[in-house]
């Protein structure tokens, strides 16, 4: 059932690409139907798979002479992320509802690239064959470029090219490690589970792990390779920012866990020498993750562009995901996967508020200008929405972010106590930048010098925007109140990870 999420998205993309241009206005309805069908399939697959460890989805010999198979399967982690992709896809279409209302929007092409990207993302989360995973991973790169370069805003061609080149450089690093692993293991299988059984020499793992991990982590926005993320997010049209932060950055983190860490667990072992307390690749990357948390939050604190605030906050939140993975503890990895889901939903909501609801009406994202517009009164819906999304994002109990961040911090406390403290400080800075942005954009007193100024009138909030908001905010609230919905799927899947991975916390 889950496999049809992939086929449906690609089929939809193909049909939209060949649709005559006169059907511009119908494209969004078609895309919404496809995205909804994908979400329903993802949900059904999620429910049907509960209680099982891994659900086999498809298995066909693809290139038998090279040991490459078309193998799809879903364990708990995959099912959670597929569900996230379905939600992000539907929300993305809903928040792109203004595309296709004017001539020259090229709505067919927009939604074709959109669905192609979604199809690739579904594919990555479901692939068990390493080669297949890589194919889907690369398929997701090209549509991103066009989505940003054609329909984007601020410095769109620069942002799009930077993002494409970073992604492609990362995937080249992954491909080197992947080819080397394939050759070392005897060139007869690409199945992730079979390769994970193969005893790669420790010296091999010691260079393959950092290479592949970095390759994937570039897409996860790991400091110091994060610079594509803020520029890309800011340049992208709303739906593309939502997908970038919501699911594409998750591809990177997912690859780090599924490929780099699962195949080369001994790459995380200590080197035997210690330099300033850094004694393994694990500490190196955990340090990068913590720097990312603090750095992203600190930079978000001084941005004047509303969208840059959210862009840098994504870097910070993805740092938490990477830190959680590197704790190598059950609770830390649980938290990291939950944080992927939670951040996917919340980043989508924040980008939708800033990029679609506010920017499309005020045509500015500059916090200084926004502060003069009395948005708190002119757009109460947007103001309250940002309050809720911001609170959820800073980790208020009752929302999904809280459960995830607590788990990551507990795991980090067991593995790297000092890093946990620093990450905690990062979360506090997160509160600060969210409050600052909220205050300046919506509740500023700057207009008070001229109390007679009229409250500007803006277009009312459309049904599509409301539907998208309720979908995302409702999901975050639901998971925050009852996290076991997801954790029951994630925990067994984390327990099933290679044994060597989960021993790290008990050293």
């Amino acid at each position: 059932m889950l496999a049809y999420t992939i086929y449906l998205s690609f089929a939809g993309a193909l049909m939209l690409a060949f649709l005559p241009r006169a059907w511009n206005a119908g494209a969004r309805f078609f895309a919404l139907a496809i995205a909804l069908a994908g979400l329903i399939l993802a949900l059904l697959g999620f429910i049907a798979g509960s209680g099982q460890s891994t659900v086999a989805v498809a298995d066909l010999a693809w290139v038998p002479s090279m040991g490459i198979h078309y193998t799809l399967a879903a364990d708990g982690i995959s099912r959670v992320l597929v569900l996230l992709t379905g939600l992000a896809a539907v929300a993305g279409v809903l928040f792109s509802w203004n595309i296709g209302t004017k001539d020259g929007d090229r709505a067919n092409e927009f939604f074709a690239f959109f669905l192609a990207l979604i199809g690739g993302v579904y594919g990555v989360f479901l692939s068990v064959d390493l080669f297949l995973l890589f194919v889907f991973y690369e398929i997701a790169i090209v549509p991103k470029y066009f989505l940003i370069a054609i329909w984007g805003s601020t410095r769109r061609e620069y942002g799009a090219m930077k993002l494409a080149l970073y992604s492609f450089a990362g995937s080249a690093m992954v491909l080197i490690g992947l080819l080397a692993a394939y050759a070392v293991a005897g060139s007869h299988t690409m199945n992730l589970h079979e390769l994970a059984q193969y005893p790669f020499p420790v010296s091999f793992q010691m260079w393959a792990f950092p290479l592949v991990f970095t390759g994937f982590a570039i897409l996860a926005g790991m400091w110091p390779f994060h610079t594509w993320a803020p520029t890309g997010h800011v340049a992208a049209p709303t739906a593309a920012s939502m997908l970038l932060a919501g699911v594409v950055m998750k591809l990177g983190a997912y690859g780090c866990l599924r490929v780099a860490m699962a195949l080369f667990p001994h790459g995380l072992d200590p080197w035997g020498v210690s330099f300033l307390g850094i004694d393994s690749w694990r500490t190196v990357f955990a340090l990068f993750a913590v720097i990312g948390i603090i750095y992203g939050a600190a930079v978000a604190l001084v941005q004047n562009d509303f969208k840059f605030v959210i862009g840098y906050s994504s870097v910070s939140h993805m740092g938490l995901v990477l830190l959680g993975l590197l704790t190598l503890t059950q609770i830390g990895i649980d938290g990291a996967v939950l944080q992927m889901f939670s951040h996917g939903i919340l980043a989508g909501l924040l980008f939708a508020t800033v990029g679609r609801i506010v920017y499309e009406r005020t045509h500015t994202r500059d916090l200084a200008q926004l502060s003069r517009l009395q948005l708190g009164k002119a757009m109460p819906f947007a103001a309250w929405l940002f309050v809720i999304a911001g609170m959820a994002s800073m980790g208020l109990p009752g929302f999904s972010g809280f459960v995830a961040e607590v788990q990551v911090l507990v795991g980090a406390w067991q593995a790297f106590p000092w890093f946990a403290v620093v990450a905690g400080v990062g979360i506090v800075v997160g509160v600060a930048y969210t409050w600052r942005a909220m205050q300046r954009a919506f509740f500023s007193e700057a207009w008070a010098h001229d109390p007679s100024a009229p409250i500007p009138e803006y277009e009312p909030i459309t049904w599509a925007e409301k539907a998208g908001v309720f979908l995302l905010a409702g999901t975050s609230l639901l998971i925050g109140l009852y996290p076991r919905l997801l954790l029951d799927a994630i925990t067994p899947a984390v327990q099933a990870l290679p044994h060597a991975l989960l021993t790290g916390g008990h050293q």
Partner: protein
Amino acid sequence: MIMQAATVNYGNLFNITLPETILEVVSLVVLVVDLGWLRKSAQATRMGVACMLGVLGCVGALFWLLVHPTAVSVDGDALVATPLVAAAQVGILLLSALVFLLSIKTEFSRNPGEFTAIVLLATTGMLLVTAARDLLVIFVALELLSLSLYVLTAFAKRSAQSAESALKYYLFGGMSAALMLFGFSYLYGLTGTTNLTLMAPALSGGTVPLAIVALVLVAAGLGFKVAAVPFHLWAPDTYQGAPAPVTALIASGSKVASFALLVAVSDGVIAPFYSANGNSWIVLLLTMAIGSIVLGNLAALAQTSVRRLLAYSAIAHAGYMLLGIAAHTPQSGAAVLYYALTYALTTVGAFGVIGIVERSTGSDRMDAFAGLSRRNPLLAGTMLIFLLSLAGIPPLVGFWAKFNLFSAVLRSASAGNWGLALVAAALGASAISLYYYLQVLKRIYVLKPTQDEPLHVSSIELATLLLIALAVVALGLLPGMLSAWIPLG
């Protein structure tokens, strides 16, 4: 010492060379038809008839190759027929047929008969180069190919650029042919035979300094044919100046034939030579490979002409393939051929699109492609597929070719030390290559068109391009389709 003289099997020879014979006969027929009967007809009719006859010739030869059981060949034959050779020949014939289909509507030549006849002669040369295992036959076949291509490059008689590029191509080509012949003479002097297979045992005897000189000279000749650094200087000018279909032919069929020859030479000469002489020859090949990869990809970044951009990218692709030649295992030989064939197919398509855009806008500069997706979405879509395949994006065939080639290089025993480093360099460079392919695609999809009216493409050209694009996608989705001829993995 020429041992095959006593045992020539003329029946077998006739069988093996029948495709070439068919092409020769058709090339004469074309001349008679065009210059005899159609002399007074309209230019468009003459071009159409001549090109369709050319297609028929290629298809006839193809048909013979496909239905005919593999001819027997023995060690010492000047021409061989093995599955790999057959695969290369089938590919070359298909590529030439595609070039004819894309030439039908072109207007660069007022002599369609001669054009078609010379393309057929070049194709004959390619087929012979692929099958040849004797130094003399190799040289004669290469010269047939090269001389035909020099003439074709100059075929746009009203274009000064065409003449200039042909002259450059000819001067470089003549020089490298002379060097190669000189190298061949040393090889003959050292081993007493002109046959590659018989030469191998004589070369594996021990270290001979003169043999290294000979191989360097041969490398110069073959390096020119595949446009590898430092013998690449002709490529950008020729790619830019020649008529579009001719550039397609130079970039496709000629490349396939040259790489098939390189695989044969590496089987017959390099492998035994390697065991006797250490890695001097490998170092030479690797230097050429890495030089081509680096220079090709970096120089392409700075181009504003799409033809020159593809010329530099061709240099880079030749570099990737030379890595496979240097690995010299049976798998890597097959992988090089797979790469060359699929690369050639994609390039023919790309030059087809360039030719069409050039006819409409009068320029091959990147800006001439601005807004192509709005002027003709189908044409733009095919170019998207071709360029992404060249960049190695899955699921298109270019990705499989790269994957197959690099995994063959990594598995080669002789590649133990350098394999990983060079594959890493090649993959890093191909990440750079995405930048310049995206520069073209940006013009096509992102920028606004300078001319608003739709760009009309004749149905035959569009059908050909769609067919090629479909093949690139289908081969990418089902890469095992060619495995009857070229085994993957």
